[in-house]
């Protein structure tokens, strides 16, 4: 139980008023000693007083905004806590062919936006958080089940991006976001990027430790542009095999070496992205116990109904009121 406008409760002492006065008429009677104690009258008087208290208290409780506070119930369903780690570097503004988007081809970020929107709308019981990364990691939205604001954040990803791709610190921020929300749900990070970068050795250690501490599934959706190196590409014997030359291959190897549930998807077209997102959706479909928030429920109506019942009793008594003198008059006439 809670009150939304508790100031009104200051009026509550007024509910004691019916104990000192009542709405029936008081009449003089020459000799009260003459009257016998009448059980029925005593009960009726008590009833009227209780009705008066209920009517006043009910109205005050209603005005104070009596409500049942928001609560959480546990349900089983299919869902996860997902952090979307989204690349906001300026290369995402190009098409999969590595060109400026024209009327016929959409940019990678526009494709990602469309497909992620669709994904989020379909996932009923999931909670989402968003981390953006480019030159610096950016906390965009904490883990939430409010879909509209998540979609508002997704809507902003096809705006012009920044210069670099600092995937390591972005990952760390996504991990910390997950670890701040210890829930029973299955937890996942979806990394959406069109490139990778070298992760420094110290940061690698840190990431390894964080991934080992938390049970988190990792998906990497690599939006590969035409001509760029793939994540599964094996270098020719005369080529150098270093993270600087093949950052995608080495990031993939790093993820595989983490010994966590990890899947990589390489997508070279919007259709392939949609396919990959569907795959992720299928994988993140373990039955989980998820918390469903029940919003605050307004109970002021019921307070008014109680008040109305009290008022009805008072009104009935008032309507049935008769004067002693009118009886006396009638008796005289008879």
């Amino acid at each position: 139980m809670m009150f939304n406008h508790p100031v009104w409760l200051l009026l509550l002492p007024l509910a004691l008023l019916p104990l000192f006065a009542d709405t029936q008429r008081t009449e003089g009677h020459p000799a009260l000693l003459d009257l016998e104690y009448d059980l029925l009258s005593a009960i009726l008087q008590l009833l009227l007083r209780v009705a008066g208290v209920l009517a006043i208290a009910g109205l005050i409780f209603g005005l104070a905004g009596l409500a049942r506070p928001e609560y959480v119930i546990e349900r089983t369903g299919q869902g996860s806590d997902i952090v979307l780690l989204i690349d906001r570097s300026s290369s995402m503004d190009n098409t999969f062919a590595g060109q400026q988007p024209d009327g016929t081809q959409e940019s990678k970020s526009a494709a990602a936006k469309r497909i992620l929107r669709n994904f989020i709308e379909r996932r009923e019981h999931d909670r989402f958080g968003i981390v953006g990364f480019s030159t610096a990691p950016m906390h965009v939205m904490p883990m939430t089940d409010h879909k509209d604001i998540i979609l508002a954040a997704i809507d902003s990803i096809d705006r012009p991006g920044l210069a670099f791709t600092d995937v390591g610190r972005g990952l760390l921020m996504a991990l910390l976001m997950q670890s701040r929300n210890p829930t029973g749900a299955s937890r996942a990070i979806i990394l959406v990027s069109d490139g990778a970068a070298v992760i420094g050795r110290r940061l690698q250690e840190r990431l390894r430790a964080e991934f080992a501490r938390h049970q988190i599934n990792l998906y990497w959706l690599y939006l590969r542009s035409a001509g760029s190196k793939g994540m599964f590409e094996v270098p020719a014997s005369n080529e150098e095999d270093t993270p600087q030359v093949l950052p995608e291959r080495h990031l993939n190897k790093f993820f595989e070496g983490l010994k966590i549930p990890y899947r990589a998807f390489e997508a070279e077209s919007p259709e392939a992205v949609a396919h990959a997102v569907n795959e992720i959706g299928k994988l993140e479909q373990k039955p989980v116990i998820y918390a469903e928030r029940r919003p605050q429920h307004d109970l002021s109506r019921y307070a008014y109904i109680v008040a109305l019942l009290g008022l009805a009793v008072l009104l009935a008594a008032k309507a049935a009121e008769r004067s002693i003198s009118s009886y006396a008059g009638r008796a005289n006439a008879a």
Partner: protein
Amino acid sequence: MINFLYRFDPRFVLLVVAAIAATVAATGLRYTARRSIVDATIVVDLTGSMNARDAGVAGKPVSRIEAVRAAVRDLAQSLPCRSRLGLGIFTERRSFLLFEPADICANFDAFDGAISDLDWRMAWEGDSYIAKGLYSAIDVAASAKSDLIFFSDGHEAPPIPASGIPDFEGVPGKVNGLIVGVGGSGKSPIPKFDDDGRETGVISAADVPHDNRHGLPGKSVESAAGWHPRNAPFGAQAVAGEEHLTSVRSEHLRTLASKTGLSYLELNAGRNLRDAVLRSGTLRMADVPENAAPWFAIAALASLLAAYGISVSALRRASQKLSTLVR
């Protein structure tokens, strides 16, 4: 007949009124009210000088970013429902949108979480070209079809060149909104952080440039020590200045506001941000459903209390009469 007159007691009328009003209240009647709402993109300056701890009330200094977080949270709570707020950040010379305007009442938790995560660590560069950042924020707000609320301390780093503030290429007044100046009026030091985000002291005079040597030198520079038109067009001496200390540059922000057709407000205790936002923004109206029940409940309560009030005064009159009789 007597009986009817007898029943026609004001208390009877009051009880009938109370019962009718309570019935209406119990049905949960709703009406729609037209309310002015806000649709705005908030852009927060996250450059180094915003870490200076000179905002807040005297004796309890908080950093400027913290003051902005508190102000935005208050604003979000006080705006009428159906208002929408988006969030962006500004560093270097660009504003970067984190999320587009979304309904503030329905998403308050998430919005609040996003606000409390605003941090200088999200800034990707140390420079602070406020004018350019503001112009890009105006573009962002225009593309989100919303007003702009731009929080900044107005501290340009590096300082403005001799050629003055860069020109605003947009149409002044096309995007409505507010520039909010953050920070104290006295000079205060700017904290410095190392690579791992630990505070390592304050920025000293030697850490920052005190004049801007981009573009053409100004007219008065010829009198500077060691000036030479070819070899030292800005003078040969390093300029000493107080750019390592910061205060809210209201003059600069006011100039920017008049250039771009925005309003200006200094964020201080007692200034009402909500009213300023509603006043400076584009007037938008929305039909908001309002609960009518409280009004009817008040009417019911008033009539019921009046009915009891009559009884109390009648009782007092009767007892007075009785006491005179006894006497």
